[in-house]
């Protein structure tokens, strides 16, 4: 049982939520000579099409190919690996993010990752997959293929979360590793109302209170945060949020009211049963 719990914890590890990485253009050397680096192994790969394997190539300028230098030392993570490109005009610059992803996959292949992006992440195919409600599959695929701060990852994830929010399919991501990032995304964009409604309807008030707490952590100057209601008092806590910061007030209030009525009915029923039994 303990082993199963430990395994489940590993599988439920949340993918990191990061800002989108920015394109930078660091030029390392503008001249044509290549300095010796003694502490890393470099692989110089001339990947020009049409040259035979036995051709003798020199590393000086006046050639028509770009060289990509990838540090393949064992034990370095893909994010910290040194990858640089010598352009045809002799400039040695740091590799762009797309070049980095490609080289990392070529020299350090990961299971399930491809050099070329799967066509699933194109707009049309993504839309048809979302219509088929394959949210978890899309998110798992994009986690395996892309880094969490790449533009493709951000675009695909936001597309999935928006579709889930629009169609109220939050239950599909419950008990998966993507639930946390989805809640963070919705809280960041102040769209937790439909999520709250679905949680209240499933009678998960403590989870709903956690979502409101997350919202208040992100938006520290929201009005409900200043009320300072105890989060363990789930009902009051959620009500405080509804009154101050909620955008779809009516729906959440309705859901909460329905929940309260249901609880009352159940209590009444239990009381009746007890009196019938003479307790």
């Amino acid at each position, binding site marked *: 049982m303990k082993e199963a719990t430990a395994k489940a914890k590993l599988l439920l590890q949340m993918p990191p939520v990061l800002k989108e990485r920015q394109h930078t253009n660091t030029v390392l050397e503008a001249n044509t000579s290549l300095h010796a680096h003694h502490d890393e192994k470099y692989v110089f790969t001339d990947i020009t099409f049409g040259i035979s394997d036995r051709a003798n190539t020199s590393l000086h300028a006046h050639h028509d190919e770009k060289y990509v230098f990838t540090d393949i030392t064992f034990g370095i*993570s893909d*994010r910290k690996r040194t990858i640089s490109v010598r352009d045809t005009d002799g400039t040695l610059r740091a590799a762009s993010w797309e070049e980095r992803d490609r080289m990392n996959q070529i020299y350090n292949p990961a299971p399930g990752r491809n050099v070329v992006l*799967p066509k699933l992440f194109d707009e049309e*195919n993504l839309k048809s997959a979302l219509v088929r409600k394959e949210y978890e599959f899309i998110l798992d695929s994009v986690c395996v293929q892309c880094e969490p701060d790449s533009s493709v990852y951000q675009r695909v994830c936001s597309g999935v979360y928006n579709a889930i929010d629009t169609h109220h399919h939050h239950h599909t991501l419950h008990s998966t590793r993507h639930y946390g990032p989805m809640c963070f995304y919705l809280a960041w964009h102040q769209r937790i109302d439909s999520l709250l409604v679905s949680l209240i309807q499933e009678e998960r008030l403590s989870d709903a209170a956690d979502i409101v707490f997350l919202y208040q952590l992100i938006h520290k100057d929201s009005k409900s945060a200043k009320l300072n209601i105890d989060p363990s008092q789930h009902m009051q806590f959620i009500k405080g949020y509804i009154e101050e910061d909620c955008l779809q007030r009516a729906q959440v209030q309705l859901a909460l009211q329905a929940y309260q009525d249901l609880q009352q009915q159940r209590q009444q029923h239990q009381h009746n049963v007890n009196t019938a039994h003479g307790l």
Partner: protein
Amino acid sequence: MPLKMLRSVGQRVTRLLPVVCPTTHMAKAAVRVIEGRSVTKVLYGVGRIQGITTCKTMRCEVAEEEEGEGEKKEDNIPPEKNRRQIIPVETSIKYMQSDAYKTTYGDEPVWVKYRRNFKGGLPPTKTRKTCIRDGILATGNPCPVCRDEFLVVEYRNLELIKQFISPFNGAVLPPLKTNICQKQHRRLLVAVNKARDYGLLTYDVPHRHYDYSEYYQPQQQDGTTEAGR
């Protein structure tokens, strides 16, 4: 010598290709001449007939040269073996939903009811290379996909492709199990990979483990580590 005899009887046979085409009236006469007793005596004494063949392909060439009548190659194909017509995928997808498919296969995959012919108890480790050669069924017992011309293996034809994927572990079933020919099996592998690439077929994606220290180190001023240059 046989040619001289034929000429002496008054039959003309082309000199370029000394071939007899039994389908034309002149050739039929020539065949009768050859089969005639007077000729056969001499022929058998002489030995085998040289320069005269009744080979099918040669026959047709003579026919075209001689008179222009004669049969084209396409007319010789029995219609049930003709696979020259290319069926589009959309037709195949519609066929999978049709009554014709339902009555033929029911609810089972198309390969279940097929029986492969081989000698001995254990089947050969590879199925046949291909059932269709030059657009014609070249075997008497074609594989489950080739025997039905409306089963087109393509990435969009998910109904058909899913029948060749194991329901237990999501792997493509081996051709020894499904008994499809090697060519169709290769096309099936391509179709399955393409469908998975487009996201039309789902599969168990390998789990990716994140080392959080690569993404977040609170000691640094900015929350993320910079990729090394």
